[in-house]
């Protein structure tokens, strides 16, 4: 969260202090507010009580005045005698004495005297309702939208002739008198209901919340408060700020429902005396935070500066720069800095040693292959800038392992060191390296290839001197390979490799020095591409099999076939097995290929079976796979679906690599009913020992012997003895490469069991093979009828 310790400490301290301050401020504010509220509330309640008293006193005073008048004999006489001038003067007299706004009488017939009826704006009608229900009504009456305190007293002379009515406006001036009675400046307003809309209306010039107009919120609050049993101070959220309110119902005249006395006091006014105190708290807090921020910033700085220095030093160290720091204090941080310095020094030393080890050969202390590669890279960059060429000369000590076997590892290494030093002396400044046990290499810049060749020849001449190792001298014979970039090699990074290959090419040509020949080397990338194409071809069906008949010499018909893999490449045409099978063996793809061939063979065998031909199918099995248990599992799984005899053909050589595992797998195949055939017998490393151990069923004599049978006595003899050997071991014998009728006749005579070759038939596709079998069957049928010699007929067709 914080990238710097100093910021973190400062923020933490300031944050904690600030939080504490905020909490304190809030608590102080809350208690002040609560206190102020309580004061206002008490004041409102007492104002409410005072108002009640004042209201009652006023009502009583008016009532007294009205009653006094209504009972005055002279007044009654004036009323009874309709002496209006006297009535008016009496009313006016009393109105002035009591300081009231309206004084009039209203007769039992509703006639108003003493005031212009229009001035009452219909209030007299409601007044009549009230006096009919009550003798001495007293309460709030709305006159022209202004609430009035009204009392009425009946005039009895002695019968009821009318009422004396006094009305006093409850406007702002009137209420100010009440407001002055309160210790705090409470806003007091009497609200009545509008004649028609029944909405709450306030007198003009009302102060406080009801000033202006009564909002809907306020009306709702008043209605709610009026429902209270006992008047209670309530909070009200006015647009201008919160206020505490007290609503008291006031009796009204004229059936409008009670009027309301609204006492209010804005909280802002209540809080006003405390604002300087709150301001002081906030200012003090802000000052405190500022001091704290500065203080913790400086404290954190003294703590974190050594840490920052170490942090920067570590970053320098990781970049491999000088990482020493100056210890500034003698405390833990100072000691840490010293420890860090010594640690950094050790790291640099170790790094130097590791780098040296990584770049040098342990035995000779010459630069190694890695060092040379880097040097060549640098050289290539330099040469490119100067228009020169880079040559790498690989220097191989001939028969190094023999020499090492003769003189021992230590001396052999010493010998390589001597040669390397000699080389370095001859080519001072040029990078050299020991790239393999018996191989040194040197890189240098030349103008042309011939110059490189001359230098190579010169070096060879000098270096092929006997090397003195102590008191011994060892003769050294060298083969050199030269690669030059960009003339011979198009990739500077491959120069050392290409030089080594040039050595191989020199040896293959029995030369002492060769220049790298790209054409002869071929392209390994292309080989890998071929493999991936092969895998693709398996799925597309471009790899398929042909069947070559195996002819039973005794039965005189074809009883089996060897499945031979074929690849029809969409661009290159037919690809020979020799072109891809060895590579498949090297890259491990042989397993996929063999499984594919096996499943094809089983499928085609089933197809033949469906046409009525029982054919034993042989599949060649690579020596790489014989010892492969997983392949064996897979093959056994596939073989389970075979609808006839399966035979796996393998060479004895295949067993030699992993005899134990190979023999185990052969046993498992044999147990599963798969026949094992020893292929190419007589060539390679045929071992009688394995012949004895292998649980084989058949032996195939290599065509090299069979083809020569007709001409050479020796081959015929070998074939005959092999046939006899196999038979005596209980094996059947198949002769490969039968190309003439003569050979087939000889083999038949020798007791050979099966024959295979062009004389019988070439490998062919399944359909052709089926046709071939059908024709053979037809001919056999014809032969048996005619009893003619079929050999000659077959010779004719071949």
């Amino acid at each position, binding site marked *: 969260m914080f990238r710097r310790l100093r910021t973190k400490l400062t923020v933490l301290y300031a944050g904690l202090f600030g939080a504490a301050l905020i909490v304190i401020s809030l608590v102080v504010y809350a208690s002040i507010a609560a206190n102020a509220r309580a004061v206002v509330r008490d004041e409102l309640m007492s104002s409410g009580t005072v108002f009640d008293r004042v209201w009652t006193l006023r009502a*009583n005073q008016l*009532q*007294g005045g*009205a*009653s006094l008048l209504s*009972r005055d*004999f002279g007044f*009654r*006489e004036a009323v*009874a*005698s309709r002496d209006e001038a006297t009535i008016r003067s009496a009313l006016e007299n009393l109105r002035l004495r009591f300081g009231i706004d309206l004084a009039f009488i209203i007769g039992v017939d509703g006639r108003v005297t003493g005031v212009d009826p229009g001035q009452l704006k219909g209030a007299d009608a409601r007044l009549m309702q009230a006096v009919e229900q009550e*003798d*001495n009504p007293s309460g709030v009456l709305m006159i022209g939208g202004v609430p009035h305190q009204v009392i009425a*007293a*009946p005039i*009895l*002379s*002695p*019968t*009821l002739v009318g009422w004396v009515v006094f009305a006093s406006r409850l406007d702002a001036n009137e209420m100010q008198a009440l407001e002055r009675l309160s210790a705090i400046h409470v806003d007091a307003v009497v609200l009545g209901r509008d004649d028609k809309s029944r909405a709450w209306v306030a007198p003009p010039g009302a102060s406080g919340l009801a000033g202006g107009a009564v909002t809907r919120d306020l009306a709702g609050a008043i209605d709610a408060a009026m429902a209270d049993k006992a008047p209670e101070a309530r909070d009200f959220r006015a647009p201008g700020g919160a206020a505490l309110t007290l609503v008291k119902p006031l009796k009204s005249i004229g059936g409008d429902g009670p009027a309301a006395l609204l006492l209010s006091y804005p909280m802002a006014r209540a809080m006003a005396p405390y604002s300087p105190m709150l301001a002081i708290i906030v200012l003090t807090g802000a000052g405190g935070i500022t001091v704290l921020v500065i203080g913790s910033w400086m404290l954190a700085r003294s703590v974190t500066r050594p840490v920052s220095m170490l942090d920067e030093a570590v970053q320098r160290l990781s970049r491999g720069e000088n990482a020493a720091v100056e210890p500034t204090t003698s405390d833990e941080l100072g000691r840490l800095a010293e420890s860090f310095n010594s640690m950094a020094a050790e790291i640099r030393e170790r790094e130097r040693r590791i780098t040296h080890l990584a770049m040098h050969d342990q035995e000779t202390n010459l630069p190694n292959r890695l060092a040379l590669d880097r040097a060549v890279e640098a050289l290539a960059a330099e040469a490119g800038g100067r228009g020169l060429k880079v040559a790498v000369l690989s220097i191989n000590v001939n028969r190094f392992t023999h020499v090492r076997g003769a003189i021992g590892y230590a001396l052999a290494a010493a010998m390589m060191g001597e040669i390397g030093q000699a080389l370095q002396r001859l080519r001072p400044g040029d990078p050299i390296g020991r790239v393999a046990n018996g191989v040194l290499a040197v890189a240098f810049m030349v103008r042309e290839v011939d110059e490189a060749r001359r230098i190579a020849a010169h070096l060879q001449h000098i270096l092929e001197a006997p090397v003195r190792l102590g008191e011994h001298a060892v003769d050294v014979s060298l083969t050199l390979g030269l690669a030059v970039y960009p003339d011979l090699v198009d990739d500077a990074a491959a120069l050392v490799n290409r030089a080594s290959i040039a050595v191989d090419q020199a040896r293959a040509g029995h030369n002492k020095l060769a220049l790298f020949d790209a054409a002869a080397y071929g392209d390994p990338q292309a080989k890998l591409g071929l493999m991936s194409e092969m895998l693709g071809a398996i799925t597309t069906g471009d790899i398929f099999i042909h069947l070559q008949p195996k002819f039973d010499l005794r039965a005189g018909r074809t009883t089996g076939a060897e499945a031979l893999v074929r690849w029809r490449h969409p661009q290159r045409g037919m690809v020979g097995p020799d072109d891809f099978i060895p590579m498949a063996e090297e890259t491990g793809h042989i397993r996929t290929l063999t499984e594919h061939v096996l499943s094809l063979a089983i499928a085609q065998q089933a197809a033949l079976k469906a046409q009525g031909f029982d054919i034993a199918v042989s599949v060649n099995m690579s020596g790489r796979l014989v010892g492969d248990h997983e392949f064996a599992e897979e093959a056994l799984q596939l073989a389970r679906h075979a609808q006839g005899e399966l035979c796996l053909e393998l060479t004895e050589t295949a067993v030699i690599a992993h005899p134990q595992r190979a023999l185990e797998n052969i046993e498992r195949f044999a147990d599963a009913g798969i026949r094992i055939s020893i292929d190419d017998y007589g060539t390679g490393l045929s071992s009688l020992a394995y012949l004895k151990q292998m649980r084989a069923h058949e032996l195939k004599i290599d065509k090299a012997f069979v083809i020569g049978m007709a001409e050479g006595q020796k081959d015929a003899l070998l074939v005959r003895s092999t046939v006899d050997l196999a038979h005596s071991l209980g094996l059947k014998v198949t002769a490969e490469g039968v190309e003439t009728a003569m050979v087939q006749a000889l083999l038949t005579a020798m007791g050979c069991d099966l024959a295979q070759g062009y004389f019988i038939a070439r490998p062919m596709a399944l359909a052709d093979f089926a046709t071939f079998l059908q024709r053979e069957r037809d001919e056999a049928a014809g032969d048996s009828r005619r009893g003619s010699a079929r050999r000659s007929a077959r010779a004719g067709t071949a």
Partner: protein
Amino acid sequence: MRRRPALCASLGLAAVLLAALAPEARAGDVAFQVVDAKGRPVMDAVVTAYPPGLKADQMRFSWAQEMVQRNLQFDPFVLIVPVGANVSFPNHDPVRHHVYSFSLAHPFELKLYGKDETRSVRFDKAGVVALGCNIHDNMVAFIKVVDTPFAAKTDDKGLAVLKGLPTGQVQARVWHPYMKAARNEIERTVAVPATGSGREMVQIDLRNAPDRRGGY
């Protein structure tokens, strides 16, 4: 505050008895039963009848033509007198009274007179005279000055009987000081039987009597 009902009831009864004793040829009686809106009997309602060819002279009623002041009250509450009657106002209270009336029928004023003093006033015009005392607000009474001999006021059962009315259709009026009607009076035509007694039920609406205690 109400009047003393027992006294009024006995006076009413006396009036009924006196009327019954008066001899009259080919005439019948009509008993008026006056009730209020709730069916309760109304006392002190004055029933008058004006048969055709009425001679309004030599009228005389059986009850005393006086309005006594006793126990700070007028007695009776309602007094029926004929036109031209002299009504005396004897004061039996130990305090003085100041009887007055602003009624248009006969405004008068009997200024402060003491115990066992009597004043009398002659009423020449038919109508209602409301009486009050300027000193004692609670004192109220009414004198109904009539111009017919056929007048009676209801007793505490709400009954008033007019005797010896000529047979046939007669205009009758019922008046009460607190009746909700114009001039506190209603009028109706009543059939008088040849012999025996007819009966007339009259229902009237009363307003409450004003509270005379006042505010103070």
